[in-house]
């Protein structure tokens, strides 16, 4: 990534979170990964001033308590959090989820590949893109 701030992963599935972590390690991405399990925990993390602000958010959609779309609505209504780039990483291929996500200005909507090599490719392209792109401070 452009800077060395952490990546915030919002994901209720432990296996998927481990896969992201493993892919980052295989790709030698040095940013740390903060893993939270739902939208409520993500908001708690982001609103706590003592936590380091992430460079980007990787967001799953189907989660208990507060799902990805609800979290997006919260983020985009918050003057200090709306600038944070959010990339959706989900298994949902539903048109409704895509429409809602893009209307909430997500910076990408990636389907989780089942195959690990393809999963690594997705993380690689996300990393490369957000290394060349600027990231809000």
């Amino acid at each position, binding site marked *: 990534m452009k800077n060395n701030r952490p990546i915030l992963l919002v994901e209720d599935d432990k296996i998927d979170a481990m896969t992201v972590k493993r892919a980052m390690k295989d790709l030698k991405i040095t940013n740390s990964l903060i893993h939270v399990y739902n939208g409520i925990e993500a908001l708690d993390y982001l609103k706590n001033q003592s936590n380091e602000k992430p460079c980007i958010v990787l967001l799953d959609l189907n989660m208990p308590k507060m799902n990805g779309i609800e979290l997006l609505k919260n983020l985009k209504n918050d003057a200090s959090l*709306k600038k944070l780039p959010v990339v959706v990483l989900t298994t949902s291929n539903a048109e409704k989820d895509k429409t809602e996500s893009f209307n909430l200005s997500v910076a990408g909507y990636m389907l989780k590949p089942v195959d690990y090599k393809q999963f690594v490719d997705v993380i690689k392209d*996300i990393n490369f*893109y957000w290394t060349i792109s600027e990231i809000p401070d």
Partner: protein
Amino acid sequence: MSLDSILLIEDDKINALTFKKGLSRISTDVELIILETAENALHYLRNEGNTPSIIVLDLSLPKMNGTDFLAIIKNDADLKGIPVIVLTTSTNPSNKIECFNLQVAGYFVKPLDYFELIESIFNYWKKSEFVQAVKEKENH
């Protein structure tokens, strides 16, 4: 659906041509539309009802500039879902924050290795899903 068209809003003909060349090296199945002003782009999007997969926007444009265009797009219910990526020579941090507050999906400062830039944009957005275009729905 997947990446099928890019709208490039760029008044510099050489930059536009470089982008076109770079993209054609990587892919021949993504349509590239190049418009020189934000006004023409708004007309293309609104009056002609076109929905590109993504918009690549130069910030310094004649007449209406890139940030004004962004503000209009993001306040338009029909257009706000199109991801907009900024290309600029500005290293001014306040421009960057303004653009991210206006919900850009990437902010690239020139000069960069142009081919690397296009490759990165292409590879990333090729992996992304998109909302099914309205014109496609109407064709049925």
